[in-house]
């Protein structure tokens, strides 16, 4: 496979092709009759997914740096160019995006009934925006994609969302916009500070990374600006309040992509920009203590609030806050296991929460309610649906053998050396997760079948099976045999840990270095 891909010089054009194809796809979607919009969109997104699969094989797992890199000149005088590339961290984010998109299109097949052309055009634009965020290696380009992606999601929530959609859409937009504009100022300050030292104005990631120390005393401010932008996106408690609104009001595919991909942009931002640029600030004892505390609060708070939600979708939305808390914990622990675990949760959460939102959407299409109390005993009526829901829920809880377990276990294991107390508390989050999801499961698919409206429900259709099947396969695969994935992350993770090393050295006294950390580094 790798030879074949090499023979067509796959690595040279693939990223730009992935970014361009959805945009080209917008044209036929808009120009052809509305009835064909979804078919065209599905074809484009499947093509996109198939093309992106090549990344899996042609990716060089031994290389911790950027691969598939390419540069297209843009605003030369300002040191801005269209620089893109992928490493072991962004690889899986790209694959996750390209996987979830065709499923989302398929999942909206009957859900979206009006203004279909607009909807699918926005979905394709969103795909380009999401991929752009993950592959950008120029801070200007990154910023542009980061913002541009907002607009399609804003429209998707605002036009096809639920009853309170306008409020949710505005809140989503303003929160993200506020954070990202501060980040823009931080980017500019950083570029000029670096330029003052090197004499070259450049927005290139590599240049800024290399000379990040030039920012000097501004580093805490710059880190704060980056961190707030990313923290809003993750979202880290207390910046999470936009999330339940946006998730609940968004149409199913919107929720899937929000949870599956958009939230990961925040954690990705920490891994790619905030921490490697300013390890001395981000990993300093004070900031670490603050972030880890917030992460643990997020884990517990998200789980507790999820437990009392009467609305199934809101329950899953709050569970995201909880899961992402683990990711932040893992990122800040900075050991091989914890960072890999954080990446595994990012992937796994995309699959399992995506699947949960799809399943809730399917219930909603049948009954037009998401109240947990409206269901009960569904296992007897729609066994297949119930089976899938059970598997996915167990994956989300973190049952060994399914994907959720691998990530959370690695994070807890890897973080224990550095933050034993935080890990101790966060572990209870796993128990809470079992509580809220199993309790919800019990009320939805078990219990007595006492509501007449539930007796006539149809089980998963063929189309719906195709929506969830790839996700279930992924969930099981990552749970049983995550090694190929971990292998591809390893070099990049090691490279990342080397980048943030200066920040660790200032906090650690060498004798008390966590064992896992010492092991990880040859």
């Amino acid at each position, binding site marked *: 496979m790798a030879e074949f891909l090499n023979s067509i010089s796959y690595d040279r054009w693939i990223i730009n092709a992935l970014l361009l194809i959805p945009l080209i796809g917008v044209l036929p979607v808009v120009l052809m009759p509305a009835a064909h919009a979804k078919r065209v969109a599905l074809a484009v997104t499947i093509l996109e997914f198939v093309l992106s699969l090549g990344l899996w094989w042609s990716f060089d797992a031994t290389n911790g740096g950027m691969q598939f890199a390419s540069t297209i000149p*843009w*605003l*030369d*005088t*300002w040191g801005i160019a269209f620089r893109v590339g992928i490493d072991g961290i962004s690889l899986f984010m790209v694959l996750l995006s390209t996987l979830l998109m065709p499923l989302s299109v398929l999942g909206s097949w009957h859900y979206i009934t009006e203004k279909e052309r607009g909807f699918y055009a926005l979905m394709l634009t969103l795909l380009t925006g999401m991929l752009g965020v993950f592959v950008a290696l120029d801070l200007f380009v990154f*910023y*542009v994609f980061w*913002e*541009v992606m907002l*607009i399609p999601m*804003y*429209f998707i929530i*605002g*036009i096809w969302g639920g009853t309170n*959609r*306008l409020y949710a*859409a*505005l809140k989503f*937009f*303003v929160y993200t*916009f*506020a954070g990202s*504009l*501060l980040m*823009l*100022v931080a980017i*500019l*300050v950083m570029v*000029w500070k670096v330029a003052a030292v090197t004499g070259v104005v450049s927005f290139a990631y590599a240049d800024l990374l290399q000379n990040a120390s030039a920012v000097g005393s501004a580093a805490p*401010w710059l880190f704060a600006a980056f961190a707030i932008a990313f923290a809003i996106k993750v979202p880290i408690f207390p910046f999470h309040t936009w999330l339940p609104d946006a998730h609940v009001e968004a149409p199913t595919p919107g929720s899937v992509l929000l949870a599956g991909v958009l939230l990961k942009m925040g954690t990705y931002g920490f891994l790619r920009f905030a921490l490697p640029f300013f390890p001395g600030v981000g990993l300093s004892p004070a900031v670490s203590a603050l972030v880890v505390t917030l992460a643990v609060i997020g884990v517990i708070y998200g789980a507790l609030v999820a437990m009392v939600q009467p609305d199934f979708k809101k329950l899953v939305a709050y569970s995201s806050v909880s899961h992402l808390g683990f990711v932040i914990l893992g990122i800040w622990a900075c050991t091989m296991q914890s960072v890999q675990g954080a990446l595994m949760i990012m992937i796994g959460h995309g699959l399992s929460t995506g699947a949960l939102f799809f399943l809730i959407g399917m219930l909603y299409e049948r009954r037009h309610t998401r109240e947990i109390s409206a269901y009960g005993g569904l296992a007897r009526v729609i066994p297949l649906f119930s089976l899938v829901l059970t598997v996915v829920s167990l994956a989300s809880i973190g049952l060994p053998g399914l994907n959720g377990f691998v990530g959370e276990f690695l994070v807890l294991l890897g973080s224990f050396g550095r933050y034993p107390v935080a890990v101790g508390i966060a572990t209870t989050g796993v128990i809470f997760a079992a509580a809220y999801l199993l309790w919800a499961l019990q009320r939805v698919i078990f219990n007595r079948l006492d509501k007449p409206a539930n007796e006539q429900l149809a089980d998963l259709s063929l189309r719906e099976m195709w929506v969830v099947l790839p996700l279930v396969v992924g969930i099981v695969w990552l749970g049983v045999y995550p090694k190929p994935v971990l292998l591809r992350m390893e070099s990049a993770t090691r490279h990342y840990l080397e980048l943030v090393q200066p920040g660790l050295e200032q906090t650690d006294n060498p004798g008390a270095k966590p064992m896992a950390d010492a092991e990880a580094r040859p």
Partner: protein
Amino acid sequence: MNAFDLSTPSGLTIAMLPEVLLTIGAMVVLLVISWRHSTAADSRLAGWLSLASLAVSAAGLGWLWSGNAQSTGIPLMIALDNFRYTADAILLIAAAGTVLLSMGYLERERLLAPEYYCLLLLSTVGMMFFAGAQDFIVLFLGLEVMSVAVYILAGYNRASAYSAEAALKYFLIGAFASGFLLYGIALVYGATGSTNLVIAGAQLSSGHLTTMASLGLGLLLIGFGFKVAAVPFHSWAPDVYDGSPTPVTAFMATGVKAAAFVALARVLLETFSSAASQWQPIIATLAVATMVLGNLVALAQPTLKRMLAYSSIAHAGYLLVALWPNSPLGAAALLLYLLAYSLTTLVAFGLLAALGRNGEREVTLADIRGLSVNRPWMALAMAISMLSLLGFPGTVGFMGKWYILTAVVAQGSPVLAVVLVLTSVVSAGYYLPVIMAMYMRAPQVPLAHSENGLASTARVAVAIAAVCILVLGVWPTGALHIVEHGAAALAQLIAPTVAGQ
């Protein structure tokens, strides 16, 4: 091209070629309409003639520009540099856009007095003098020619009391502002012994201002503050913008504002550059006040036209931020932002003019509900315009804001930049509801907006401007090049300032 000796009449005439050509054009229009004065066709004819005059003037401008015309020695009356040419180009674009927007509008509102176009052209001539002046006297003459014509235009809808109110208010405040400006000029002349911007600047190059010069600077800033509608000198603007016929409002928001800002930039950067430490705190304070108040008050406006009026005040704040760095980069950012803002505002007001009747004072968000259903292209153009005003990537508005931020940050003080972005976030609170109303709400009655078409000429203007917003938003290289060259003209006059002041 040869260097011109601006002390000879012929040299001066050539140096003023775009203005001269446009004045001749205005006279021709005046001559024609003295015969053909009454029908809609006459009005249209005057419109087309005006457009032709603007094109001829633009050709003259292009000739000067491409020939890279230089003056021998210090230009005495009018600047011969890229800064002027770039500003003139923006002014001509604003004027041409206004003419195109006006043609259908005047017929629809039965404002069939073709002198309108003549006034428009004359005020454009005034703007070009105002923006290109190298001498305080020319600057003042340009200001007055521009203003007097615009006072009349503001009150052009004689049937509307609001239009009359706008004209009177604008006139009184304008006269007041001119007074301040004139006093300021007199004091600066007293302090330096010259009315020439550059020579006066040379006199002040020690960086220390005498009391007289400081007073002069202060009065000049107040005068300009009124003209650009900076807080706290802004209170006339909402009523005037609101009451004037919408194309005139567009003209005021684009042309008048651009000319005033370019002239202010010249005064600050050519004459008072070495005394930057004295005016930078003032400009910063004005900018912050203008951005904060403009954006916050815009949030509370019930009608679109008033919202756009306050948004225009907010944008004046962003433009003041571009002046603050006292650097060529800041001047370039000013030019780019003026271009961006002019294009965007033309689209916004052009569509507003099509959406309402009787001065468009009553158009609210409820009236544009569901516009995307019945008028998809209008809704799309409006959405592009709103996103550009918001400064969203992919639009020229973002490039302008990015450039201003760059200029401020390069000067080593990110505080103004932070205020700018935070107030921009606030502005999302009034720009986005426009998009929401158009796209996310259903029209109140099924056939709403069916009569709200754009006239064909306005359609051309709006379409071109909207496409430019997007094209320059993605590929701004050419525009960046032009404004950088424009600002480079001022570079040798700007005194280096200590970073971080």
